[in-house]
């Protein structure tokens, strides 16, 4: 699957206005999104077979060649994305059953309970998102990259990821709104950092701090507008062309509000060196 993208930077003061413009353009209400994003880095496990390359005597089978290619191919950072709700932030504080004398009667306030249910790391659904470095040397004015997504088991994700050869690097939160315009997904978002990075912990958080304590990565609080469109078959030039035409159409429509443009290729480099 391929992904075509255009980006624009949106200053904080324009955010509200742009939200309204986008709502008008797409004829839908914004869908608020909060995502935890964990970054994993691939590493080569020691003790893997490193077969010789180039010796023409031992003809490798097709399967073998593919396996080798996979094992010795480039290493990438990948993201594990889990969507959360605002109630999950700082939830552990409100639900701490500190000496409340009146035990809540069961069944009477199920709705309230539902709202205050603590954030459970164990039942957090995850999705693996792989993004390649954008393709180089394309003449078109959009960012194009290979992408793949897969859903992962719920709960603690580090163990399976470690088993697959990925180590946890860091995590952050993305906050924003999604709009859909035909095939284009418009995501107006910004990156939030957790309050105090404790250097020792090398694990995803099990609890989330209160939302107010999250600080935007960009100190001015500006947002990123990302317009993306996915194409099933990246080899189909026709489809790729249609997709970029759609993006250019959107760029024209938003011209008076924001300037959508291609991203710097190297800034989206996901290769692990």
């Amino acid at each position: 699957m391929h992904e075509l993208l255009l980006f624009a930077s949106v200053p904080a003061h324009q955010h509200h206005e742009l939200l309204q413009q986008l709502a008008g353009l797409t004829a839908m209400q914004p869908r608020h999104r909060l995502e935890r994003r964990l970054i994993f880095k691939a590493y080569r496990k020691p003790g893997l077979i490193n077969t010789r390359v180039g010796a023409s005597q031992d003809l490798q089978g097709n399967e073998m060649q593919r396996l080798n290619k996979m094992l010795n191919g480039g290493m990438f950072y990948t993201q594990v994305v889990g969507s959360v709700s605002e109630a999950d932030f700082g939830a552990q504080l409100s639900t701490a059953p500190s000496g409340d004398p009146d035990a809540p009667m069961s069944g009477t306030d199920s709705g309230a309970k539902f709202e205050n249910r603590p954030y459970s790391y164990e039942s957090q659904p995850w999705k693996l998102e792989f993004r390649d470095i954008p393709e180089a040397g394309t003449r078109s004015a959009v960012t194009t990259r290979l992408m793949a997504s897969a859903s992962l088991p719920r709960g603690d994700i580090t163990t399976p990821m470690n088993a697959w050869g990925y180590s946890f690097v860091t995590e952050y939160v993305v906050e924003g709104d999604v709009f859909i315009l035909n095939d284009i997904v418009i995501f107006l978002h910004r990156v939030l950092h957790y309050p105090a990075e404790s250097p020792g912990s090398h694990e995803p958080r099990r609890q989330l701090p209160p939302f107010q304590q999250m600080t935007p990565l960009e100190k001015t609080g500006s947002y990123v507008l990302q317009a993306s469109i996915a194409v099933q078959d990246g080899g189909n030039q026709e489809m790729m062309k249609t997709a970029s035409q759609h993006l250019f159409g959107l760029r024209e429509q938003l011209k008076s509000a924001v300037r959508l443009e291609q991203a710097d290729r190297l800034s989206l480099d996901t290769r692990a060196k």
Partner: protein
Amino acid sequence: MSESFNLPLHPQTEKRERPDPLPVEIAQINAQYGSFRDVTEESLRAKIEADKSKDSWADEEENDSTSADEDTTERLDQLYKRRAAITQFAHQAHMEAMFALDFVSLLLSKHTPRQAEMSMSAYLKQVAPLGSLNSEIVNPPPKPDSAAKDTKNVSRGWRLQNFNSAAAKLLDSATRLEAEAASETNYWNEVLAVKEKGWKVSRLPRERQALGVQYGFLEATPIFRDRGLAALRRTNDGSLILDKGLIPLKARTVRVRVRSGSQITGCSKHRPASDNNESIESRILQARDTVYEEELFHELVREARILGSQGVTTRQNLVQFPVSEGQEVLLDLVDDDQMSPEDETAQSNEHAVVADALAHAIRILLAYAHRQNLRRRTQLPPPLTPKRRQTPEYQLLRPVMAYLQHSSHVRWLESLLNDMDRILKSAGITCDFTATPFSSLSLQRAVDGLPKVEALVQEFLFPYESIFSAQLVTRQSSFQVKVRTNVTTPPLGTHYEVSVNLPQYPDVRPPNRIGLQHEVASVITHFVLLDILTAITQSKGSPVHASGKQDTSRQLTWEAAYPHNGELLALSSTGQCKKMKVSLSRHELTVRAHSVRGIDGVGKLTADKTPAMSSQTWKSDGTPGQLSLMDFIAEVSKE
């Protein structure tokens, strides 16, 4: 030819050499002599003769020298004369031009002798020296005062006149502007009024300088979505008109009619016409309703096309589907003014409520489909593929059809069970029927993240199910009938699932799925019959005991000989045999008992019918004073 005699200045060139293209010639011949069809040998010969005698001009031309007619010499004379005249004129013109040139050259030779000399004629050069002619500007004599005054007056008059007309024009435009401003204010007030009513007013995408009002439905099919926008134009007096372009202004409505046999027995109600038809608001509303109705009908037809296998038929402007035997529902799109009560529709109002309910139902379902479209549109889109995404047909007819079909089946089953119940009651047997029609609908069910309205409508899109259960005469036996109707996914249609609990006949199992009503009826009556037989065999004459008679010991005990035929046998101690036949149908329960001598080898009863033959029939109307079944059994059980 002689009239248009033109004169060649040059000697005649050989024109003959120019090859005449054939088509031109043919055309010429056609024009001159008429069609080739008329050319016959005789006519050609006659023509040749005539040509010879006439001695045409062509011959003259060809043999110029040979023909020395008088006419020719005369012509030649004339020719030379005219030629001479022409050359003379030309010479004269040339001479005059030369004179003029000489004059101008002489005049100029004062100032630019060199250039002027070049254009002078030799004769002039000899006669007149260069620069001998000069020119100077002469001041005209001063005009008299009166003339100057006149001019002044005239110019002042002109100016006054111009000022007047300018003032008049300005005044004109002022009034025009005033009127314009008034009508513009009027227009904007009306636009604002429309906007304040909550309509979306925007610029037209095609015509940037015009205002439009959006009244359509964003989630409709694109053709109808785009029709939901009309321009708000201003008439000369400033009032607003709704300009929908080429779309006719007529209001149209989907009409639902129910037809039983050949009679229309119900028609959906006409939408109440708005009280003031002229206000812009009412016109917008009407446009909105019409676009909705037209979309509704479009979608109905689209859906009807895929439902051809289920008896739905479409005409050009009509969709019809059968509900039950002899009953049909007709849907068509009619103009509002055509909806006046027709003689056809006035026949009966038996099903008017049904028709009205159907009309409401399909509209609600379309609104639901719109909501589904919004939901689909705002989901994360799947990756682009060359395959186009098709919008599935909306579920409009299917739920309605399913509902009607289901309720008709349920009503039939209910009446069947009620009939049986009444028969059994009249026979003194109590049987417990419970019916829960539409048990699959649970309107209280809350679906997570779905608005109440949508959850409510969604209930009606699932297959319908109704459950009938009955506690039979004997304690342990019961049966349950599930009626299920499904029109969206196969198996299509209505089918019955009968499950039975008859401990006496554990081998008896009904077919898994029954589709036909009469089969269901026979299955159910059969089970009830089997149950009655069980009850008879188990009766042990208890009712007689209750009635206080003493001879309980002499009661016969019945045994089911051929239960599936409803036959019972009782063998008395005296060796006499009694036979009883029970038959049950929807209309009656009959028990016949008679004594037989014995059973022959084949199992046939050699009945000796003349003696004690007693029978009793119970009908559903329940004639009072009849014996109950058990009493009757007790009666015949006596030896």
